[in-house]
C-alpha cells in the first residue's frame, strides 16, 4: 500500500468525490489557482475548472451560507474555512442555520454540506491560527463533527462526510498535515462516521484523544510500554458528534482508568463530556479518578515559541500523565 501524508489523503478524497459526483464543488478562500494556503486543493482547479473549484470572496459566513443554499438546491458543497480560528463569523450560519434546517423544516430541507477547516496549535500560528474550536460545535445537535488523525481515516471519513445528508464539520489537525504519514489503499473505501477506533491495545489504562493528540497519544503509549511496561488502550475518537459511547465504554470497562487528551482549553472542553459518560455509565468499573490533559485556560495559544510549547500537550506530557495515572 502506498504511504501518503495527511493532506495528500484529504486531497485525494476530494479529488475522488469530485470525479464521482458532478454535484460536488469546492468553495473557500484561495482554493482555486492557489490550491489552498495549505495546498489541500492543489491541482483540483486545474483538473475540474473554475466552475467547480470556486474562489470565494474573503468572507467566511458567506462561504457557509452559499454552501447551505447550494446544498438545499441539491448540490454537494465542500466549504473550506482557511483556519478554524476564522470560523466564528460563520457561527450563526452553522449553528442557527445549517444545524437546525432539517429540524425546523419538519424533516424536509436537509443540508448535505461539508465544512473543512485546519485547526490546532504547534505551528507558530499565535492566537488566531492555532485554535481548537470543536467544543463550540459538538454542543449542537444537527451537526456532525469529525477529526481524523491518520491519512487512512482522513480519506475515508472525508468521503463519508461528503456523502452524508447532514452538515458535517471536518476539522483537520494542521500540524500533522505533512508530518503524519500512513498507508492508504488505492481506490474506493469509506470510513463510517460515528465510530471511534482502537488505535492501540493495552489493559492498564485507556487514553482518549482525537486529531493531533491521538497521534501523540499513540507515540506516548509506545514510549511508556517500552520504558515502563505500561500497556494502554488508545481510543482515537475520530467522530466527536455523534459520539461512539459503545467503544468509549468498552475500553474503560477493560481498564478502569481513563486519561482524556485534547489541546483545546481544559475547562468545558470536549473531554468533559467523555468524563461525564465514563462516570455515569462506567462508574462500577472505575479504578481511578478520570484524568484530563488539555491546554491551559488562557485565551489562546501564544506566538512566542516557548510559550506555545508550554501551552501544547505533546507526547512527553502525555507519557507523564499516563505514568501518573497508572501509578494510582
Amino acid at each position: 500500500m502506498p504511504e501518503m501524508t495527511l493532506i495528500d489523503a484529504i486531497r485525494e478524497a476530494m479529488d475522488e468525490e469530485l470525479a464521482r459526483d458532478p454535484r460536488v464543488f469546492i468553495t473557500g478562500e484561495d482554493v482555486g489557482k492557489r490550491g489552498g494556503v495549505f495546498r489541500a486543493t492543489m491541482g483540483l482547479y486545474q483538473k475540474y475548472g473554475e466552475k467547480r473549484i470556486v474562489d470565494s470572496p474573503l468572507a467566511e459566513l458567506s462561504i457557509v451560507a452559499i454552501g447551505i443554499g447550494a446544498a438545499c438546491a441539491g448540490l454537494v458543497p465542500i466549504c473550506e474555512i482557511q483556519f478554524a480560528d476564522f470560523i466564528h463569523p460563520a457561527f450563526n450560519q452553522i449553528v442557527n442555520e445549517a444545524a437546525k434546517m432539517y429540524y425546523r423544516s419538519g424533516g424536509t430541507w436537509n443540508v448535505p454540506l461539508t465544512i473543512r477547516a485546519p485547526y490546532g496549535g504547534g505551528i507558530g500560528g499565535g492566537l488566531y491560527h492555532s485554535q481548537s474550536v470543536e467544543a463550540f460545535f459538538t454542543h449542537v445537535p444537527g451537526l456532525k463533527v469529525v477529526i481524523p488523525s491518520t491519512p487512512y481515516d482522513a480519506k475515508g471519513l472525508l468521503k463519508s462526510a461528503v456523502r452524508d445528508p447532514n452538515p458535517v464539520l471536518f476539522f483537520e489537525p494542521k500540524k500533522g498535515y505533512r508530518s503524519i504519514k500512513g498507508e492508504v489503499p488505492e481506490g474506493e473505501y469509506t470510513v463510517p462516521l460515528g465510530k471511534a477506533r482502537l488505535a492501540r491495545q493495552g489493559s492498564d489504562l485507556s487514553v482518549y484523544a482525537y486529531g493531533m493528540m491521538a497521534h501523540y497519544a499513540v507515540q506516548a503509549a509506545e514510549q511508556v510500554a517500552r520504558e515502563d511496561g505500561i500497556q494502554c488502550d488508545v481510543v482515537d475518537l475520530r467522530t466527536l458528534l455523534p459520539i461512539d459511547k459503545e467503544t468509549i465504554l468498552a475500553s474503560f470497562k477493560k481498564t478502569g482508568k481513563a486519561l482524556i487528551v485534547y489541546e483545546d482549553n481544559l475547562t468545558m472542553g470536549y473531554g468533559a463530556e467523555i468524563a461525564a459518560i465514563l462516570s455515569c455509565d462506567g462508574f462500577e468499573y472505575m479504578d481511578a479518578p478520570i484524568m484530563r490533559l488539555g491546554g491551559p485556560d488562557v485565551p489562546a495559544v501564544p506566538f512566542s515559541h516557548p510559550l506555545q510549547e508550554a501551552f501544547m500537550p505533546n507526547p512527553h506530557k502525555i507519557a507523564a500523565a499516563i505514568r501518573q495515572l497508572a501509578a494510582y
Partner: protein
Amino acid sequence: MTALTNTQLSHFSAQLSAETLLEMYWYMLLARRTDERAWLLHRQGKIAFHISGMGHEATQVGAAFAIQRGVDYVAPYYRDLALCLAIGITPRDFMLSLFGKAGEITSKARQMPSHWSHKPLHILSTSSPVATQVPQAAGLAFAIKYKRENGLIDPNDASQPRLALTCLGEGSTSQGEWHEGMNWAGVHKLPFICIVQNNNYAISVPIEQQMAVSHVAERASAYGVLGVTVDGTDVLAVYDVMRAAVERAYNGEGATLIEAKCYRLTPHSSDDDDRTYRPREEVEEAKRADPILRFERHLLERGILTEALKQEYEQRVRQSVDEAQRYAENAPYPEESSLYEDVYMTT
C-alpha cells in the same frame, strides 16, 4: 433601471388579463383578512404570537405573480404572508402554525408562526435572526447557475427553478449577512432578486438610524447589482419592476435589488406597542393609502371589479379563513415523540 419610470415598464402589467388581476386582488384580500383574524385570535387569548404583514400585500403579491410560483426559489421573511399565500401556502397551513398544532406543514409546529418553509413549493425554511436567508438565497441562485453551466439540468426544463427571490426589511440590510449575500450575487452575476420591503421602521428604529443613504436601492451599485426603488403600495408597479428583474435573472444578466416602499399598518408584532414610537397621524395617513384599497379603486375604475364581485370575494375569503381557523382549533397538538424526530437525516 433606476432611471426607468414605472410608465416605461408598465407594458408588463398592461398585459395582465382581468382574470389574473382579480387573482392578485384575491390573494391581497385573503392575506389581509387572514392577518386580521390572527390579531383577533391573539387578542382573544387563543394564540400566543402573531407577526403581521398588513400594508405589505401589494409588494408581496406583485412579486409573487412575476415569478414562476412554486418553481422559482423563494427565501422569504416573517412578513411574507401574502407572498407565501400567493405561492401556495394555505390559510389552513397558517392557522395550524398559529395554534402550534399537529399537521403544521412548515416545521411540524416547531417554529413560531410566519417562519415559512415548503419544500415542494421551493420556499426555503427561514429562521428568526434577520438577513440569514439572503446569502442562502444567493446559494440557491448559485446552484441554479452551477447546474446550468455544468450540464446538470436542461435549461429549457420548465420544472426547474430559474431564479432565487429573497425578501427582508430595510432594517435587516444593516446586517453583514445581507452585504455578503449581495456581494456574491454581484460577483457571480447570479439569477437573484432581493426585495427590501422598506416600511421605515425596524420595530421602533427609523430608517435614519439604520443607514446614511436615503434609499436602500442606492447601495446596489456597491455590489455591481441593479437597484430600483418602487412604490410598494402599488401592486402593478411592483409587478412591473419585478418582471424586469425576472427577465434579467432568466437571461443571465445578473441580480436586482428592489426597494419597495410601504408602510407597516400594525405594530411590529402582537407583543409590540407602536404608540411609543410612531405618531398616530402618520399611521392614519398610511391607512388612507392602504395598498388593498388602492388596487380596489383601480380595478373598480377599470370595470374589472364590481361592488357585487367585491362582496362575493369578501364572503369567500371569510369562509376560507373561518374554515382554516375551525380546522386548526380542532386539530390535536403534536405527539411528544415528535420532539425527537428530524435531528439528523438518515439515508
